[in-house]
């Protein structure tokens, strides 16, 4: 067993263990922390597959931003722990049966007879001068440039949608009132006062 296999099984063990701990943990904050460990393990598996850019993006974007957003919402909502009692007894047997059948079917279809090393040989490792980011960027900015811009527009729409959903209406908001501005008259704004000037002193 080579060192690559040892690393792979180590990462797989922690990935599966932390995922199981995530779905069975009763505390939402602990579940987020287990999911962080899962994402780190997934990113390490991706580095094993020579996808360095996506692995670091996963850590930066998911662990750094999305998971912190989850934690932020959990802390902000202040979920009462007593209401979060474990209620997953009902669907657990059926869910486990379905999952085990799916895993068995997948193992039959994706086993080493179909995708083993003799069918799909492992590609040679790239040298030190190979840059995954360069290869991705060459594809992303030429062939996939329109999907890239569409993704940017999608993120903009997500920002607008999220802000619009949670924004409270006109409580602390400063905004223009267009009709008042248009309908304003001069007498509302300007007050003409007549000031009698004092008489000039004669020298």
């Amino acid at each position, binding site marked *: 067993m080579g060192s690559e296999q040892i690393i792979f099984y180590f990462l797989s063990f922690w990935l599966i263990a932390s995922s199981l701990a995530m779905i069975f943990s009763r505390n939402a904050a602990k579940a987020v922390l287990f999911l962080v460990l899962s994402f780190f393990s997934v990113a390490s598996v991706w580095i094993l597959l020579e996808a360095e850019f996506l692995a670091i*993006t*996963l850590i930066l974007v998911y662990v750094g931003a999305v998971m912190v957003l989850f934690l932020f919402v959990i802390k902000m909502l202040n979920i009462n722990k007593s209401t979060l009692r474990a209620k997953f007894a009902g669907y657990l047997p059926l*869910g486990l049966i*379905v999952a085990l059948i799916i895993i068995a079917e997948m193992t039959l279809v994706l086993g080493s007879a179909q995708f083993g090393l003799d069918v799909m040989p492992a590609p040679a490792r790239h040298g030190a001068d190979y840059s995954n980011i360069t290869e991705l960027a060459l*594809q992303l900015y030429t062939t996939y440039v329109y*999907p890239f811009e569409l993704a940017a527009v999608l993120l903009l729409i997500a920002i607008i*949608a999220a802000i619009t959903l949670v924004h409270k209406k006109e409580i602390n908001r400063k905004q223009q009132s267009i009709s008042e501005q248009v309908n304003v008259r001069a007498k509302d704004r300007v007050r003409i006062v007549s000031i009698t000037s004092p008489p000039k002193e004669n020298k």
Partner: protein
Amino acid sequence: MVSLSDYLILSSVIFCIGLVGIFVNRTNIITLLMCVELILAAVNTNFIAFSHFLGNEAGQIFVFFILTVAAAEVAIGLAILTLLFRVRGSIEVDVTNSLKG
């Protein structure tokens, strides 16, 4: 050497764990969102494994776009969750059954 089928079976196991999480979780919607994230990570692992073994970068480009869409989904999902908590005072799955006919 680690074969392609090892990666594929690993990602299918992770997929099933996320699926079981959605089945069994009745406590809060945040955990459901996290299970969806786990399922997306498994799918992305599939894409990257095939991209590595076939020597084609298109799979990694696809993962890039999936990450973008998943980030947007999480942002809007958490916004809806905050709104739900503000209206109902709870984010338990069993409480949010107002669409039931």
